[in-house]
């Protein structure tokens, strides 16, 4: 078993999940079974292979350019015309579980 109870608790904390006792037991079983299957990737020697983060690294880019210049197509002028305008306050706050006229409200973060 690769993943232990302790790992599940630690990863849940990183992911801002709590999980019930039952969920943790199921998670332990499922993660180990999936990771065991994933281990087949180690059959491949990838020491000379470059990682691929996204498809746009490889297609539609100007190969003669280097670094961020290759992705020039992805940038645009900082304009308002033709783009969506900023949302008015009340619209931006309309879906909030708790808000006043100006702000999202959350439980107190700092104790006095």
């Amino acid at each position, binding site marked *: 078993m690769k*993943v232990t109870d302790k*790992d*599940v608790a*630690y*990863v*849940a904390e*990183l*992911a*801002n*999940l*709590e*999980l*019930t006792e039952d*969920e943790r037991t*199921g*998670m332990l079983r*499922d*993660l180990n079974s*999936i*990771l065991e*299957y*994933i*281990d*087949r*990737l*180690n*059959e*491949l020697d*990838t020491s000379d*292979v*470059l*990682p*691929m*983060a*996204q*498809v*746009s690294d*490889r*297609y*539609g880019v100007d190969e003669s350019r280097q670094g961020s210049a290759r992705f020039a*197509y*992805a*940038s*645009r002028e900082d304009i308002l015309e*033709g*783009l*969506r305008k900023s*949302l008015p306050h009340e*619209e*931006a706050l*309309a*879906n*909030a*579980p*708790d808000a006043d006229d100006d702000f*999202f409200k*959350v*439980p*107190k*973060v700092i104790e006095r």
Partner: protein
Amino acid sequence: MDLNLLTIDAARTAVQERKTTALALAEAHYARIKQEDGQIGAFLTLSKERALEQSDRIDRMAAEGKTLPPLGGVPVGIKDVMSTRGVRTTAGSKILEKYVPPYDCTAVARMEAAGAVVLGKMNCDEFAMGSSNENSAYHPVRNPRDLNRVPGGSSGGSAAAVAADMAVVTLGSDTGGSIRQPASFCGVVGLMPTYGRVSRYGLIAFASSLDHIGPLAKTVKDAAIVLRTIAGRDLMDSTSADVPVPDYVAELDKPVRGMKLGVATEYFGDGLDDEVRQAVETAIDKLKGLGCEIVPVSLPHTPYAIPTYYLIATAEASSNLARFDGVRYGHRARGVKTLSEMYRRSRDEGFGAEVKRRIMLGTYALSAGYYDAYYLKAQKVRTLLTRDFDQAFRKVDAIVTPTSPTAAFRLGEKSNDPLAMYLADIYTVTADLAGIPGISVPCGETKEKLPIGLQILGKHFDEGTILRVAHAFEQG
């Protein structure tokens, strides 16, 4: 004229020529939904007000003798992962049960600008995570061909609605096969365009380097019309490609004679159902009969696609879903005392089992000490998988495969075994990883009358070719 059996052109022409109205079309589809959807479950929300407003606009245009846009009056459905201004958008999750977006997804806006009438929002697996639509937090979707079977996923509602004539076309999303696999299970056409071909602005993100929007339709031509409508650069999505959009409809009637089609043994190995194999082999023979040349190709890294996909997709999902914290939108747990307790409990209560599983796997793969062994390793194998296609496409114009190893399975059959469920995507995930386009077209049925799909994969930004092959196959 049966208003529920029209293609896009037939519907638009009927409205244009005043043989029917956009309103009558919408009402016929709502009637069908009322009659059928109680048992199928394809819709999560109906947007009647919006649909009536749009059909009224189209009917006035027709009455004034103005030429209708390409989708004028055509009733459509939108997968519930795409934002619709003023219409509830849940992503199939309880965490967004009451979420009403303040803006429209670009693809939806382009559909409406082209005259489409949005009937409502389609059921799907929660955050598009699933292959059977059983992970919807609301209710599963049932396959219209056999109500004991799944429609596939995650765009199960989108596929079922088209199959049951509750919409002319729908939009779905595909991250690992979520358009093509349900299209195959329900016997409709499903097209995943090239990565970057269609803007994702307003699509609720699952895995950003893999997410695509595309159509599910009754015919290849309808899929081509929708792609032509939604494709192209969008300033609101920096990953949308600045590549000219050809007239995909005009591509359809170009000849396929002499075209080279690759067949890879890796897609016909263990786990492929015999009836599916037979149907796909018959389909390949038919394409040969149409003058295509069949060329063997090798995609040797195919067996590594599923593990690669489930590391990359979950890693990206764990990051994308961090935004659901109960602050700006979505569910917030009651009675919490601290901010951190609010985050944890809101997410615990709002997310379903599969979403939590994927967030956990992705967080684990990205965590200190495991990043190189899992996430980085998967990114490197992604390069190898993509190179396989690069090499194959030097020899062939397109590649034909089964869409899924089996026809639609029974509800509950795989829901307790995540790994078995993941393997339903074995023939579809690699195209998402490589960013190439793919289409599924119906190619027969099993003895139990369940649809089988033929998948055609193409080169980057070469949707024209796969649409052309699919169209020739469909018509031939």
